[in-house]
């Protein structure tokens, strides 16, 4: 059975409810669906893409003074730089995940087999001493 609320409690509950709602809406979603905060490599790619877009577009304008074409170059630069950073970051992320998985498996094996004849370290030391 719920206890009667203390004088301070309703405000604390309200504050925690508010923070709960805020936490649901805190994540930034570009165009309403790309969650930049929680998707690995998304924030990095979008930031570098924006930088590349500004550099390419502004640089083109400085050389040609053509506004519309510079905007096109800026948009193209954004897409290309974002894609390039995205693939590069995701490739490294995939490599990191593989390394993490290997390390996790090795730690598990070490815990399980330490001191037994299946200990990988014992096998490795035995083969190196031979």
């Amino acid at each position, binding site marked *: 059975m719920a206890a009667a609320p203390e004088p301070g409690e309703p405000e604390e509950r309200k504050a925690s409810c508010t923070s709960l709602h805020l936490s*649901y809406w805190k994540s930034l979603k*570009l*165009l309403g*669906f*790309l*969650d930049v905060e*929680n*998707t*690995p490599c*998304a924030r990095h*790619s979008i930031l570098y893409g924006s930088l590349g877009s500004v550099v390419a577009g502004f640089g083109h304008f400085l050389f040609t003074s053509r506004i519309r074409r510079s905007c096109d170059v800026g*948009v193209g630069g*954004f*897409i290309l730089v*974002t*894609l390039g950073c*995205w693939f590069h970051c*995701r490739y490294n992320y*995939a490599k990191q995940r593989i390394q993490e998985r290997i390390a996790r498996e090795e730690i598990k094996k070490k815990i399980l087999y330490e001191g037994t004849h299946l200990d990988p370290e014992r096998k490795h030391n035995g083969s190196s001493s031979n």
Partner: protein
Amino acid sequence: MAHATQVGLQDATSPIMEELIIFHDHALMIIFLICFLVLYALFLTLTTKLTNTSISDAQEMETVWTILPAIILVLIALPSLRILYMTDEVNDPSFTIKSIGHQWYWTYEYTDYGGLIFNSYMLPPLFLEPGDLRLLDVDNRVVLPVEAPVRMMITSQDVLHSWAVPTLGLKTDAIPGRLNQTTFTATRPGVYYGQCSEICGANHSFMPIVLELIPLKIFEMGPVFTL
């Protein structure tokens, strides 16, 4: 389970679901860039003051907008096919459970180590305890071990149903007269929810699936078989 207002995928509880989330992020980034390009083209169309009536052909542009989408499709298809074949791998399951769909409940059979068969009905609202989830909790959960490959054989006794658990990346149709197989390996313990995913009558929304994943040591002690 999903929290209120959740639109995205749930956190992964199996390696396949982790791969699916990675692929989803990859596809979503490509979709975002295409949408950005289309919005920019729309903006240009709406703001242009030029009326050009003398264009007769645009070979370069047509070549680009044929080859570029083909490349994009290849970039999406390759990881997709990789995951598709990954889901079809059968990696020597250590445990097999049969799941039979009925109107409107599930029957589970643990026949590997004994003849345990039980029904899993949704808990009606009047029977919910404080903390129970409305329309999700059931009277008898499916108890399974963590980090052990499990094979689910799914079928139905009457109409089409679908056995789905989003956090494991599973959705398999329960078809009368047919035995479908799916395998999974859960990576963390917990209670995971799913719902019937094929329209099957009046109470289609009221036949949930609840998996209780427990450490293998505890599972081997036999809590499942004390019903």
